[in-house]
């Protein structure tokens, strides 16, 4: 069982050292999660940075170290979802005929596959559950706990996302 941060094994750590110790193993994943949610590396870097800043800002509120990962995940998802809503970044990929920058791993992979193109059809909430479920291998229950929503809502969003993506994938299969 993890001890509360205030009396844990690293009691001599400063808050900053403790935060960076917990952040280290998670930052790649946070960045990748943001990348597949937003579709662009630069946007992902910005969003992950915002999430880290938010996490640090609220680090006092985290009592158990083993909650750091889902806690950070939730912040990343919320930041990305807000960005998608606020800026209305609907497409995951550039407009047709425009090649994504070679250095952008997210835009490239999302542009080359029908799944990536189908993902851009999803709204922020559906996109979040799809990426958490299929990319991050999170169960419905884990997603529900992470996002603070009922499991039924997660299931509904997954089903709705499948309904939305299906025509794009079937069109690819049929060669059109």
């Amino acid at each position: 069982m993890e001890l509360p941060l205030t009396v844990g094994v690293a009691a001599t750590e400063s808050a900053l050292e403790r935060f960076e110790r917990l952040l280290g193993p998670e930052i790649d994943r946070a960045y990748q999660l943001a990348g597949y949610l937003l579709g662009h590396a630069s946007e992902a870097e910005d969003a992950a940075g915002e999430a880290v800043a938010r996490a640090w800002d609220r680090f006092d509120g985290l009592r158990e170290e083993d909650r750091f990962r889902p806690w950070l995940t939730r912040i990343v998802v919320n930041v990305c979802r807000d960005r998608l809503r606020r800026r209305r970044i609907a497409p995951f990929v550039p407009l047709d005929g425009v090649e994504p920058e070679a250095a952008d791993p997210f835009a490239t992979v999302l542009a080359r596959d029908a799944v990536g193109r189908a993902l851009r059809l999803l709204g922020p909430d559906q996109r979040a559950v799809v990426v958490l479920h299929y990319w991050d291998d999170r169960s419905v229950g884990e997603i529900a706990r992470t996002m603070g929503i009922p499991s039924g809502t997660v299931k509904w969003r997954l089903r709705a996302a499948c309904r939305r993506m299906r025509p794009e994938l079937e069109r690819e299969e049929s060669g059109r």
Partner: protein
Amino acid sequence: MKNDELGQRVRAFFATSPRPPAPDSLRRLPATVVSAGPDRERVRVPGVFGVRRWAGLGLAGLVIAATLAMTVGVRMAGPRGGSTGSPVAPGLTPAGPSSSAAATSVAPATPAGTGAPYSMGGLAWQEVGIGAFDGVEDLAFFPVDQGLLVLGTSRTAQTRLWLTIDGSDFQELDASPFRSDDPVTQQVRMTGLAKGPAGYIAVGARVQPGKPGSGTGTSSPLVWRSTDGLRWSAVSTRGLPAGGLGSVVATSTGYVAALSPSYSQTSGTVSPVFTSADGESWQATSVIATKVVSHAGHIVALTSNNSLAVTDDGSKWTTPRLATQVTSVTAGPDGFVAGTYDQAATKMSVIRSSDGRTWTNAGVTSNSSVGAMTYAMSSWVVLAGPDGVHDRSRITTSQDAVTWQESPIPDQVLGKAMPGGHLMAFRNGFLAVMQAEIGPGSMTEYGPLQVHLWWVRTARPGDVPGAPMPTFSPVATPSGGITEARAIAIASARYPVTMTAPFGKLVTIGGFDPKQTLVPAETPVWAVIVLVAKPGCSGKAPGPSPCDLPYTSIAVMVDYYSGDIIEVVDSSK
């Protein structure tokens, strides 16, 4: 392609997708974000980590009660959460250069578009702030010396704050004092603002919503202070009980605030009115009330027993003699106006007063929906919702609160709005806040909303003629099913309706949260919403009491093909 095949396809895609490492810039907090020291210190900087802290608040709790209110249309009139008890006087002039300079020192102006003015019924509707409010679900207004503070809230994002001087440009301000730790589960709401001897004091609540419609949410009071109305800081309060603050007014010696009532399905909690000299230390008064408003040095409280109490200083209260039950009270430049409920006639009426002590009858409204109300353009202005006669919301205006005139609202406005909204007098017109549902919701909670802000003034030559309500062709439905009227008749036979007409909506259950129904997805049903009386609330006036909403709504699922009632969903359970 079946769902599991599609899932495998998506999983395979992600399995072969790259997992690039995070840039080094993300691996450590920049020194500008955190500085070493005995305790950590937070500094906001521009750039990657200098993100705008647009905070959030939420409009969580857009629950069945709201739906019910819109349907029933009796209570819930008046300003919604976030509105101030002190409307801006008509003719408010823009701030001068000095205040403008103060505002620009906070943040650059937010680029915002302005639409064409659409005229109809003597009024012109012009959308403002286009683009500035993306992702915002609701707006609330609070007048300050420099202009109008606009608070943008969402159930899923942090609160944002703007200042507008002219109603078209919106300067974004630092909203971090209104930030929530997690806007999805904990929302911060500002509900009132007053300028008094200790400067600006704003009140509100930290709300943790419960299950929609269950009344299980909890609130705690919040107070903020500002010297200029633009830069805010949270205040530690003493003497306030649990519960959210709903309104505040200023006196010559301090402030008077009322807590919002909190309700569950079976009980309600109301609190005393509190007074404070500085916004930090609060003392309870003997008056139990749910709202305070002020006009010309007089303060009127809407008491928990559907009456009014009056004071000038917050310490000595008197109770005017009233023959009817008061359900709402607001203040305008001419004085106070209160909505009352005539139980015998089941009619809403209006009474008026210049000092809060002597009240006169001012007219009888219809028993249809009375939505938001404000005083603008030398008239009382009411946003009236749809009812049995009117399919759509419209504006009704009156100079004497006796004779009312109706103005239709252009389709350019209503075409992207849900019923309801709220109004705020501003300059020589008023601002109207409308909301559009932009994603799927559930039966008890709206889906994601997008707010639209309209500036309404007297129409003049050159305005674009507004479009009337279009006539729609019948929505394509599968053949062989029963009609909406038949479905309503079937539902009404099971649940006799006494309050208002039921309405039906042809849906597939897949459109609802599957937790709320046992009916298989993709099954077309008529969801007929009917209202049934809450136990123990029969005959009681709608008003600030546990029977504030004396009816609860249930959805009767009528099979589209067979006409059988296949499920009943009670929002109160």
